[in-house]
């Protein structure tokens, strides 16, 4: 059997579509752990990034934190987190929690950096106009800066989401479930059909995540700014995304 038929056979086998180790359940695990960690990372990084972008204070420190976080090997972060998470919960601390910690840690840099560069790059004239109209700082942020910067901010969320989906795959090595299990088990059992089935599913989910957040990004672009896409506002270098 060649790889294509073997993969197709594995993917279409009804046994793969039911039960705890079936594709639907693994997909659910993957999406669940990814959503939880993205949610936590957003809660931590987004308010900080918006505040830094608005006030201009702490940008150097945030860039330092972001650069540090980006340099960390994801597998190493999972390993480092284990003794801490085991103290929190003896069972989950050895499986799901360390991966969750790594996902949050690695998702913070792109969200933080894009949020503050996005806000900081908003035309100062717009901000001054808002101030002149008697808007409070909070209103300026919510009604002027955030809507204008939204595509850039979401660009950071997209990088983070893709990174999280990839890290969730790695988590399968440490027993956190998800689609990565098919890769880990397939390699261990020398089962090419399972490996390639897993590759198709994992790559599919990663690309779907990228496309979905990319669509949101496009929708978030204010109609008034749409045809100025190639203008200076759109060429802010987004945080480069790194593979996991």
């Amino acid at each position: 059997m060649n790889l294509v038929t073997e993969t197709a056979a594995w993917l279409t086998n009804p046994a793969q579509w039911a039960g705890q180790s079936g594709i639907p359940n693994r997909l659910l695990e993957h999406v669940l752990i990814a959503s939880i960690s993205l949610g936590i990372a957003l809660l931590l990084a987004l308010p900080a990034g918006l505040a830094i972008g608005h006030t201009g204070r702490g940008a150097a420190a945030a860039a330092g934190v972001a650069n540090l976080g980006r340099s960390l090997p994801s597998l190493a972060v999972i390993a480092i987190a284990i003794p801490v998470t085991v103290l929190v919960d003896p069972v989950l601390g050895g499986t799901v929690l360390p991966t969750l910690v790594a996902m949050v840690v690695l998702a913070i840099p792109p969200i933080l950096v894009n949020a503050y560069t996005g806000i900081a790059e908003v035309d100062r004239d717009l901000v001054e106009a808002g101030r002149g109209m008697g808007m409070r700082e909070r209103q300026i942020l919510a009604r002027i800066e955030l809507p204008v910067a939204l595509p850039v901010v979401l660009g950071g969320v997209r990088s983070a989401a893709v990174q999280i989906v990839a890290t969730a795959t790695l988590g399968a090595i440490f027993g956190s479930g998800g689609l990565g299990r098919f890769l880990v088990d397939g390699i261990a059992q020398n089962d090419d059909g399972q490996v390639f089935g897993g590759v198709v599913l994992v790559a599919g989910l990663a690309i779907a995540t990228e496309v979905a957040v990319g669509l949101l990004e496009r929708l978030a672009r204010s109609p008034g700014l749409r045809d100025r896409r190639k203008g200076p506002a759109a060429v802010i270098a987004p945080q480069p995304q790194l593979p996991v």
Partner: protein
Amino acid sequence: MIDWSWLAGHLDAIAYRTLQHVYLAVLGVAIGFAISFVLALAAARYRVLYPPISALSGILFTIPSLALFAALISLTGFSVVTAEVPLVLYTLVILVRNIVAGLDAVPVDVVEAADGMGHSRRQRLWRVELPLALPLIVAGLRLATVSTIGLVTITGTISDAYGGLGYFILDGYHRGNFLTEMYAGAVPSIVLALAADLLFVRLQRRITPWTRVRATEAAS
């Protein structure tokens, strides 16, 4: 919590894995740079090539590395090729983008001045465009190196023969969360990544002395 006698007894192994880590990473970045350089020059000269190159590499970039390593095992076996191909592929995305951006950032006036002085296309590239693109090229090398050092840890999933310091993380986990061994892999791999980052920051500063001059002028 840390078993010091294990560490003392495995210094040789840690040194060996550290060297292997550096070797796998440097090999990946070096091959990746050679390929990217050719691709980027081609894309800078023939613009039509750039969108397909960048779209293809963008898709590749979103695919998790574990999937790429796993897919290659059945094609190229448990060999060093399986470890290096994904490492090289991931560097392409970063390096091609940065080299092209660097060449694009060369001011048109400078290019025209070079033409006016009678430079041939090749002379202009090597003497004018590439030196001016160097800061962005080095910035790309910095990102590529740091990310490759991280990815080398995952090559341990292919076979115990690879993985660099990642070997200890996986082996320690398989021994039932043997923390000393896991930390013996995790901590040096983080140090390695940060050291590489710092090294490139220094190099960036050294090759762009004018940024420092400008900063002091602005301060005075």
